[in-house]
C-alpha cells in the first residue's frame, strides 16, 4: 500500500472531479474553472486516505472506446430485454452462470461486474475472490458459454488492458 | 448598544460548545468552566432585572425589526424568570460537581445547553423561536434525565421523551394554524392580528390556542398530563431532578405569557379561554399532588409529587386570573422552584448518606453519622415546602388564598389548598420520622458515604432562599406587582416590541 502524501495524490480523479464540478455549476467561465480546479485538487487530497490502492489508468483511449461500446450495448440490449419483458415470460430461460475471472484487482473486477450488470440481460449476483468466479444471473440465455465468451472479449479484456498489466 | 438580553442564551451556549470542543479537558477544568458560566448568570440576571425596572428591553436579533425578525424581550416577568433560573443553576452545578457529573459523559455541556434552552424560552418574543427553545431545553433534559445508569431512569425517560415528542408535534400544529390565520410569528404582532380576526378565523386561532395550552400543560405537568412526571423526577439523578424543578415552571411561564398576551381581553370570544379550562384541572392536580406525596415510597418521590402539587397551586392562581392572584402565583413560583430543587438535592444527599441499600426510600435506615444536621435541614425544607410559617411557602399560600376572595372559586381553593396542606404535613412528618427517627435493626450497617459539605452547602443555598424570600418579601412583592401590572397591560409590551428601531444605520 503506497501512502504517498503528495500534492496531487490522484491526478485522474482530480481531473474527473474538475469535470464533475463544471457539470454541476453548469457553466464554463474562468471563475468556475478556478473553483473546479481548486475543488478538484482539494477533495481528492482530503479523501486520498480512502483510496488505499488507486487504479492506474494506462490507456485512456482504450477506456473511451470501451465506454462507448458499453453504451451502445446498453441501448441495443435494452430493446431486446424490453421485447422479452413484454412478450410471454413462459418461454424465458433464466440461468445462474459462474464466470471465471481473469482480472485480479478489486477495482477492475468491480468495474467488470458493473458493466455486466449495466448491459441488459445479465446481473452480477456475486463475486468469489478466492475461486476467481463471478456469479451472473442471466435473464434469458440459451448458450451459457457463448455469453461467457462475449463478456470475456467485449469487456474483461479491454478492462484488463486499461487498468491491469496483462497477465498473459 | 447593550447586548445584555442575548447573553443569558449565548453564555451557556458558548460554554456548552466549548465544553464539547475540549472534551478531553480534565474534569476539574470542565467543572470550573461550568461553575463560572453559571456564576456569571447571576450578575447578568440582576442586571436585566435592574434594566427591566427602566422599561421593556427589546433586542432585535440580526437587527431585523419585529415582526420580521426574532426579538428577545425583557420585561419584568422575563427578568424574574431569568433570575429564577440563575439562582437555581449555580447550586445545582456546585452539587453536581461533587461527583454526580461523572456518572456519564458530558454532563456539564448538557447542563449548559439546558440553561440555554430555559433562558431562551423566557426571553424570546417569537412563537416559533419559543418552539425552538422548547426543543433545546427538551433535548437537553432528555439527555440529562437518563444521565447515569439506572433502569428506572430509562423507563421514565422513555415515557418523558415520547410524550414530549407528541407534544412537539402538537406545538407545530398550533404554530401552523396560528401562522396560517394571522400570518405572523411575533407574539406582539400576533396579538394585534388576533384582535381583528373574523369569527371563523378567531375560532381557528382558538383551536390553535387550545393546542398550545395542551403543549404547555404537558410541560407544566397538569392533570391529566402530569402522569409521567413523578417517576421521571424521582428516578433522575439528584442535580438533574433539582434542575428539573424549573421545567414545569417553563410551561407555566409559557401559559402566562401566551395567554395574557395573545388571548387577552382584546381577543373577543377567546378571552379567558385558558383560565376556564385550567381551573378544575389545577385543583385536581393540586389534590393528586398531595395524595401522591402521601403515597410516595421514597423521598425523591415525595418531592416529585410536591412539584406536581406546586403546579396545581400555580395554575389555580393563573386560572383565578386577577392581578393579585398572578402576583401570588409568581411569588409561589419562585419559592416552590428553589425549595423543590433544594429538596431534590437533599434527597440525593440522604441517598448517599444512607448507602445504596436504603437510599432515600422511606424505610428505617442505618444510623446516620450526621442525623441531627440532616434532620434539621430536612425539617427546614419540609416547612418551606408545606407552606408553614415562618418560611416563604406560607406567605405564598396566604397571598393566593387572599387573592381568591370569597366566591365559590375561593371555597374550592380553600378546601383543596388547605386540605392538601394537611396531607402534605402528614406525608412529610411520616417521611421525616421514618428517615431521621426510625432506625433499622442492629444488622443494618452503615454503608453510606460521609457527608460532603459542599453538597450540603449547595442544598442549603437553595433552601435558604425560602427564608430570604420572607425577609425580602416586601420588595419582592412590590416587584412582582409591577411585573403583573405589566402583564395585565399587554399593549405596553406590544408597543415596546413593535416600535423598536434598528441599531446603527441600515445593516
Amino acid at each position: 500500500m503506497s501512502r504517498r502524501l503528495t500534492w496531487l495524490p490522484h491526478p485522474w480523479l482530480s481531473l474527473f472531479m474538475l469535470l464533475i464540478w463544471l457539470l454541476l455549476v453548469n457553466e464554463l467561465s474562468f471563475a468556475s474553472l478556478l473553483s473546479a480546479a481548486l475543488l478538484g485538487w482539494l477533495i481528492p487530497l482530503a479523501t486520498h486516505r480512502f483510496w488505499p490502492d488507486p487504479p492506474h489508468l494506462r490507456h485512456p483511449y482504450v477506456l473511451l472506446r470501451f465506454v462507448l461500446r458499453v453504451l451502445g450495448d446498453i441501448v441495443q440490449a435494452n430493446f431486446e430485454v424490453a421485447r422479452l419483458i413484454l412478450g410471454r415470460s413462459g418461454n424465458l430461460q433464466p440461468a445462474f452462470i459462474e464466470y471465471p475471472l481473469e482480472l485480479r484487482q478489486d477495482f477492475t473486477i468491480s468495474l467488470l461486474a458493473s458493466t455486466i450488470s449495466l448491459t441488459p440481460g445479465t446481473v452480477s449476483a456475486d463475486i468469489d475472490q478466492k475461486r476467481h468466479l463471478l456469479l451472473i444471473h442471466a435473464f434469458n440465455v440459451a448458450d451459457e458459454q457463448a455469453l461467457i465468451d462475449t463478456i470475456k472479449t467485449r469487456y474483461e479484456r479491454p478492462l484488463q488492458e486499461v487498468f491491469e498489466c496483462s497477465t498473459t | 448598544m447593550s447586548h445584555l438580553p442575548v447573553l443569558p442564551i449565548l453564555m451557556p451556549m458558548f460554554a456548552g460548545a466549548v465544553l464539547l470542543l475540549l472534551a478531553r479537558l480534565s474534569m476539574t477544568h470542565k467543572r470550573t468552566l461550568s461553575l463560572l458560566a453559571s456564576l456569571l448568570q447571576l450578575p447578568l440576571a440582576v442586571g436585566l432585572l435592574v434594566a427591566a425596572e427602566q422599561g421593556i428591553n427589546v433586542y432585535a436579533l440580526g437587527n431585523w425589526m419585529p415582526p420580521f425578525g426574532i426579538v428577545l424581550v425583557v420585561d419584568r416577568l422575563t427578568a424574574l424568570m431569568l433570575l429564577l433560573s440563575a439562582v437555581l443553576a449555580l447550586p445545582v452545578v456546585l452539587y453536581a460537581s461533587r461527583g454526580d457529573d461523572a456518572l456519564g459523559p458530558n454532563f456539564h455541556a448538557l447542563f449548559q445547553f439546558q440553561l440555554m434552552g430555559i433562558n431562551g424560552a423566557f426571553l424570546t418574543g417569537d412563537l416559533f423561536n419559543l418552539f425552538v427553545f422548547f426543543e433545546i431545553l427538551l433535548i437537553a433534559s432528555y439527555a440529562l434525565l437518563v444521565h447515569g445508569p439506572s433502569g428506572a431512569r430509562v423507563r421514565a425517560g422513555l415515557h418523558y421523551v415520547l410524550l414530549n415528542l407528541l407534544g412537539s408535534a402538537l406545538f407545530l400544529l398550533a404554530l401552523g394554524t396560528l401562522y396560517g390565520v394571522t400570518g405572523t410569528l411575533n407574539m406582539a404582532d400576533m396579538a394585534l392580528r388576533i384582535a381583528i380576526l373574523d369569527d371563523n378565523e378567531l375560532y381557528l386561532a382558538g383551536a390553535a390556542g387550545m393546542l398550545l395550552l395542551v403543549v404547555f400543560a404537558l410541560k407544566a405537568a397538569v392533570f391529566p398530563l402530569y402522569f409521567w412526571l413523578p417517576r421521571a423526577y424521582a428516578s433522575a439523578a439528584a442535580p438533574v431532578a433539582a434542575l428539573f424543578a424549573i421545567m414545569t415552571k417553563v410551561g407555566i411561564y409559557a401559559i402566562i405569557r401566551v395567554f395574557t398576551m395573545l388571548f387577552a381581553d382584546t381577543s373577543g370570544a377567546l378571552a379567558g379561554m385558558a383560565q376556564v379550562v385550567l381551573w378544575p384541572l389545577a385543583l385536581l392536580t393540586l389534590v393528586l399532588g398531595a395524595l401522591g406525596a402521601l403515597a410516595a415510597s421514597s423521598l425523591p418521590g415525595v418531592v416529585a409529587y410536591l412539584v406536581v402539587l406546586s403546579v396545581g397551586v400555580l395554575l389555580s392562581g393563573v386560572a383565578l386570573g386577577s392581578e393579585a392572584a398572578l402576583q401570588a402565583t409568581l411569588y409561589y413560583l419562585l419559592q416552590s422552584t428553589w425549595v423543590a430543587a433544594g429538596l431534590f438535592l437533599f434527597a440525593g444527599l440522604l441517598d448517599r448518606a444512607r448507602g445504596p441499600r436504603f437510599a432515600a426510600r422511606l424505610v428505617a435506615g442505618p444510623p446516620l453519622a450526621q442525623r441531627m444536621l440532616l434532620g434539621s435541614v430536612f425539617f427546614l425544607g419540609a416547612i418551606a415546602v408545606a407552606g408553614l410559617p415562618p418560611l416563604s411557602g406560607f406567605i405564598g399560600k396566604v397571598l393566593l388564598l387572599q387573592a381568591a376572595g370569597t366566591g365559590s372559586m375561593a371555597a374550592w381553593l380553600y378546601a383543596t389548598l388547605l386540605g392538601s396542606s394537611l396531607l402534605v404535613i402528614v406525608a412529610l412528618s411520616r417521611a421525616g420520622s421514618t428517615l431521621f427517627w426510625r432506625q433499622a435493626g442492629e444488622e443494618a450497617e452503615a454503608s453510606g458515604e460521609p457527608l460532603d459539605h459542599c453538597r450540603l452547602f449547595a442544598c442549603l443555598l437553595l433552601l435558604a432562599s425560602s427564608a430570604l424570600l420572607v425577609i425580602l418579601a416586601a420588595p419582592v412583592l412590590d416587584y412582582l406587582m409591577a411585573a403583573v401590572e405589566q402583564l395585565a397591560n399587554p399593549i405596553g409590551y406590544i408597543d415596546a416590541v413593535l416600535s423598536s428601531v434598528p441599531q446603527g444605520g441600515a445593516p
Partner: protein
Amino acid sequence: MALLFALTLGVLTTCGVYLILRARTFPVVMGLTLLGYAVNLFLFASGRLYTGMPAVLGQGSEVADPLPQALVLTAIVIGFAMTAFALVLALRALGELGSDHVDGRRDRG
C-alpha cells in the same frame, strides 16, 4: 387541491397516531416519524400551496411564502434529532430493561 391535501394529511395523521399508541418502541418511533411528516406538511401548508413558484428571486414574478418553508426546514432537522434520540433511548431501554416494550415490561417466557 385543498380538500385532497387536507384528506391526505388526515390519513397520514391517523396512521401516525395509531402507531404512536402501540406498545413497542419501534412502531411508536415510526408513528412519530409519520406524524412528523404530517405536521411538517401542515406547517408548510400554512403558507398555502403554490405550484411552480419556488421562493427564489429572479425566477418568476410571484413566489411562494418562504417563511413556512424555513420553519419546516428547522422542524425537519429538529424532528430528526428527536427521533434519533428516542430511538437510541429505546435501545438503551432494551439494554437495561431487557424489553422493547414502551413501559419496559419484560416479555413473558
